[in-house]
């Protein structure tokens, strides 16, 4: 083991140089300057969950519209989107990249429970607000996290309003439920059961579905055997379509009602060959009808989308991204020119009865919960939205 001194010196000198002149400091970069405000977002742009990625691009459209109108108090909004393929370890990489290397003031949107759970702690440690995170799963919001503001309503609230409507307005006696066997299905299952208890009723049957299942005939047979008049569905769009097809095929035609995630009637009609409209499927909803261009904001956004992002489909997820961005833009406007992370937090906690094209949002310093107001829609014969019940607040929230 003989190493000549010459080699040793030539090796160690560059090493030392790297140390001394390393450019990338440890100090976190600021999320804004005099000219721009940098905001981050993550969503699956590739992979099986890619359709949800439209949300981040919807937020980008909103920022582009704001920028066209001169930005916010002289600053342009810049959105950085990171593709995480719905993989929490990728989300963490993307989020750290934006926080440590790019410098962002806040995150907007952010799709999925698992990714959000993975980065929640890190964002709180670094005091980066996560605004309008896109998941209705409950345990993300409890206990109260001062750095996370939720917009996507809780499935528990959604299901409770839905059950009340079915019992009180529609007078159904035998209600069944088809639910995805994870928190997307289990949270609302509890909500429905709590609501039915107040009428001394019980679910006639509750049938679980695995997220990857593609043959639902046994589940449908069980629902049919139980003789239910209405079925509450908490499943993914594909499975809702399969369930509807297989139930019609065996002549079982209950009133279907699905969660607010399935309000894209034109898409649902497309993948059920029109059965969605024929069967008059109902859903809850927490936004305005995205095809109702009599609403001025909706028309403005849809027109802007045609102009600024001609390749995009004007769909529910794209619009949801706009919905997610609106409260953040509002808070930034309220802050004024003297921007700082603290000021942004102060104004986010000061969003009061704000409504864009989504639900009415109120956040306070101790309450970052999403809105609990829903409408009930039915798919009309031409695939149009029929409003069966206007904004209704859940009057039976879960005790926590």
């Amino acid at each position, binding site marked *: 083991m003989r*190493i000549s001194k010459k080699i040793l010196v030539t090796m160690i000198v560059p090493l030392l140089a790297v140390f001394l002149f390393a450019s990338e400091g*440890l100090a976190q970069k600021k999320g804004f300057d005099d000219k721009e405000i940098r905001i981050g977002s993550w969503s699956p742009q590739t992979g099986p969950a890619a359709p949800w990625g439209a949300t981040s691009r919807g937020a980008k459209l909103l920022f582009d519209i704001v920028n066209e109108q001169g930005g916010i108090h002289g600053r342009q909004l810049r959105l950085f989107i990171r*593709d995480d393929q719905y993989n*929490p370890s*990728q989300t963490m990489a993307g989020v750290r990249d934006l926080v440590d290397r790019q410098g962002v003031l806040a995150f907007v949107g952010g799709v999925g429970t*698992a990714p959000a759970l993975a980065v929640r702690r890190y964002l709180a440690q670094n005091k980066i607000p996560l605004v309008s995170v896109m998941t209705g799963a409950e345990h993300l919001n409890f206990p109260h996290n001062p750095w996370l503001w939720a917009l996507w309503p809780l499935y528990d609230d959604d299901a409770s309003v839905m059950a009340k409507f079915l019992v009180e307005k529609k007078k159904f006696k035998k209600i069944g439920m088809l639910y995805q066997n994870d928190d997307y299905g289990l949270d609302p299952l509890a909500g429905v059961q709590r609501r039915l208890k107040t009428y001394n009723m019980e679910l006639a049957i509750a049938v679980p579905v695995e997220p990857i299942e593609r043959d639902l005939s046994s589940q449908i047979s069980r629902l049919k055997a139980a003789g239910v008049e209405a079925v509450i569905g908490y499943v993914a769009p594909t499975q809702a379509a399969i369930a509807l097809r297989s139930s019609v095929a065996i002549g079982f035609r209950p009133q279907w009602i699905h969660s607010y995630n399935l309000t894209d009637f034109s898409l649902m009609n497309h993948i059920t060959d029109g059965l969605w409209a024929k069967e008059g499927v109902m859903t809850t909803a927490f936004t305005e009808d995205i095809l109702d261009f009599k609403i001025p904001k909706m028309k403005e956004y849809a027109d802007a989308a045609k102009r600024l992002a001609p390749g995009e489909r004007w769909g529910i997820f794209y619009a949801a991204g706009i919905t997610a961005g609106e409260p953040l833009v509002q808070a930034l406007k309220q802050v004024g020119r003297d921007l700082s992370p603290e000021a942004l937090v102060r104004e986010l906690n000061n969003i009061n009865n704000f409504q864009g094209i989504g639900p009415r949002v109120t956040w306070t310093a101790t309450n970052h919960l999403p809105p609990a107001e829903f409408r009930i829609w039915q798919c009309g014969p031409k695939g149009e939205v029929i409003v069966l019940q206007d904004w209704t607040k859940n009057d039976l929230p879960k005790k926590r």
Partner: protein
Amino acid sequence: MINMKRAYYEDIELFKSGTIVFWTIVFLAVLVTFPLYMSNYYLYLFSLMMVYVIVSVGLNILVGSTGQISLGHAGFFAIGAYGTVILMTSLSLPFFVAIIAAAFIAAFFGFVLGLPALRLEGPYLTIATLAFGLAIMHIIGHTEFFGGRQGLVAPALDIGVPQLGWSYVLDSMISKYYLVLIFTIIMVLVAINILKTKAGRAFVAIRDSDIAAEVIGINLTMYKTLAFATSAFFAGVGGGLFAFVLGFFDPFTFNLILSVIFIVMIVVGGLGSVMGSISGAILITYLMYDLFKNVDEVPVVGALLVAFSQQFMTITGMDNFNYIAVGLVMIGIMLFEPLGLFGGWIRLKKYWKTWPF
């Protein structure tokens, strides 16, 4: 491979030459001082790389050295992650005890999976291990005790013994990075040494011809299951560290794709070589997590690619550049260097040895 050895001692020594010692020390020095000049993002990325290094070094013992195959390593990885966290939270074991215990649980499952390997080969063994990986994912997803499909949030990483009153919580990414670094160095040394023991030579003999190995007195039952158990142990340790590097995991994290990625790492790196596993794991992790992730913000090239994507691909086409690049690199390596990165390294060494002739 191309190493001329004249004595048994040369075969078992850890470092072949002073040059290797020197470069190993330099490499370690860079890794140790890394947090001084790199941002937190890189600490996370490097911690992730090292976790994958541990897994792929272990997997290479099984695939590269023993000639078996496993498409179920995500399962062992999951057992390590879940085992460590659950042993810490429900039995309140100290971290070091928990991670080793979890790795032994993974090793036990490895041993069990090794049993069918005694009778199965090639594609049949692949299917058996694949089924194991998928089964683990679904069993965990369906069991309330394991947090079901909602996943688990890792507790605070306390490397002391809180029951005895001295606890030391690693909270920052820097401290976790060092912890993973120490584990990686130990596990890599263990792997290098295993291959130089009787067991290691038995593995290689089984790979080259299991009948011949049995004829010369190698107990196939023992060494095949031992290879599976050892490999699973590495994956278990990796999983335990992964749980704390990320801080949260759900069953779907440990899906089939992850098992495939592990195989890709060792094939791209070079089968049957520890250095190959290390370089493969580092390269693939970098490609998947970092390359082109911010493609539209790269100066000049970014704008060009955006224009290309909008012209010829869909609106979401941009992010596919990452996939395309990863795929091209993999194809390129397999095409031009079938022995993987390690094969390339050997060729490079030979070339320079005779330079300039």
